[in-house]
């Protein structure tokens, strides 16, 4: 959006053109105004740009200039932060307080500008400090930390699974099975071999299966679980599967014994 200069008044005079030192190509104006980090930053810019004395700020002049910028921001619909408007109000308040008759003894604290000056100077110092920090060499950019390669030899052997661990796991399976136990009479035709291949087939596709996951069946009747468990033991005995556990009490995993037996 283009900026029309004839709406801008400085010291009561309508500006026919943007001042030379303020001339910014209209396209760049938005970007330019966005570079201000806030009202204090804008005020500092105006003070420095127009060589105003920060310790004796001509409030009328500064306020007009500040409002001019805020107006421009409004025109280009830059999202005007409340902070800018708050500062407008503060400037106007200071300006009007300065018009009040002065007490006979003027002390520093009585100067309505004192707080504003203090904040401007503090902000300016922080601005400079930020620039200095930014220029300091940092790790990751200008500082390269030595880190010669060192091979950490720490062969972690998976712990052996003891029979007790397996038994404990088995008991847990039984305990869980009891919760949905049915009593069935009659002879169930259960083949350990069949279960062995069932397990092998599952390990073929899933590579690694948790011990407990093998017992998650819909029709988990006790005899079936027992056969399943026997099948696992048989598979282990025949060296077809490997049973591992990362640490004591952690889940036990089963996987195919990777070998020529495939």
């Amino acid at each position, binding site marked *: 959006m283009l900026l029309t200069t004839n709406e801008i008044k400085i010291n009561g005079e309508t500006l026919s053109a943007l001042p030379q030192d303020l001339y910014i190509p209209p396209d760049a104006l938005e970007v330019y105004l966005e570079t201000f980090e806030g009202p204090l930053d804008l005020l500092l810019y105006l003070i420095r740009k127009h060589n105003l004395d920060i*310790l004796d700020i001509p409030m009328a002049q500064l306020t007009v200039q500040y409002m001019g910028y805020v107006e421009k921001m409004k025109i280009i619909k830059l999202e005007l932060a409340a902070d800018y408007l708050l500062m407008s109000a503060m400037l106007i308040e200071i300006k009007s307080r300065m018009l009040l008759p002065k007490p006979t003894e003027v002390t520093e604290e009585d100067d309505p500008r004192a707080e504003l000056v203090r904040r401007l100077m503090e902000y*300016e110092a*922080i601005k400079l*400090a930020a620039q200095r920090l930014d220029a300091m*060499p940092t790790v990751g950019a*200008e500082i390269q*930390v*030595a880190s010669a390669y060192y091979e950490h030899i720490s062969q972690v052997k998976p712990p052996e699974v003891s029979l007790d661990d397996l038994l404990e796991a088995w008991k847990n399976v039984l305990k869980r099975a009891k919760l949905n136990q049915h009593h069935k009479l009659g002879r169930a035709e259960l083949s350990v071999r069949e279960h062995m291949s069932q397990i092998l087939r599952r390990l073929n596709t899933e590579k690694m299966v948790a011990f407990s996951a093998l017992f998650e069946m819909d029709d988990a009747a006790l005899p079936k679980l027992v056969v399943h468990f026997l099948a696992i033991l048989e598979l282990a005995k025949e060296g077809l599967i490997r049973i591992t556990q990362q640490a004591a009490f952690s889940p036990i995993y089963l996987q195919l014994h990777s070998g020529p037996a495939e």
Partner: protein
Amino acid sequence: MRDLNSIGEMKQVLEAALLTAGAPLSLDDLLKLFAGKMERTTLRMLLDELKQDWADKTLDLVQVASGYRFQAKAEYSEYIARLNPDRQLKYSRAVMETLAIIAYRQPVTRGDIEQIRGVAVNPNIIRQLQEREWIDVVGQREVPGRPSLYATTKFFLDDLNLRSLAELPPFEEFTQAEIPLSE
């Protein structure tokens, strides 16, 4: 492992550990290398010697907030930087100003930062600095809302090659304190 007898051997152990660490090692870390058979004062002396030994080589042994580390001498940094040309990340002015306030005025709340900068603090700014591990929350101010108090971390000092906050450029350099407020 055999006992280390000569000073030379002890320095070599220190050197190998520091070169492979990739991050600063504290005196306590370095003491572990010698399994309790080393005095702190001796260790400091050895580190000083090691520093001298490297004086005319390509790396500097420097002390930062978290401990000791080897780093490339400054004259090589622009060459090495060419290996990672994309990694030059630059923080915005808002981030740097916030960092400066936290560094020089810590511990501070968001309110303190807003007061000094005159604008609301974008939560993103704080997050960026926290992700870099340059700042963290050190407590809450006992006022309504219990706002978090932010301070800079050891990593911040490490990354800026500093041993302590006292090594930051003095804040007085940035103020115009010498100019009297009235004539």
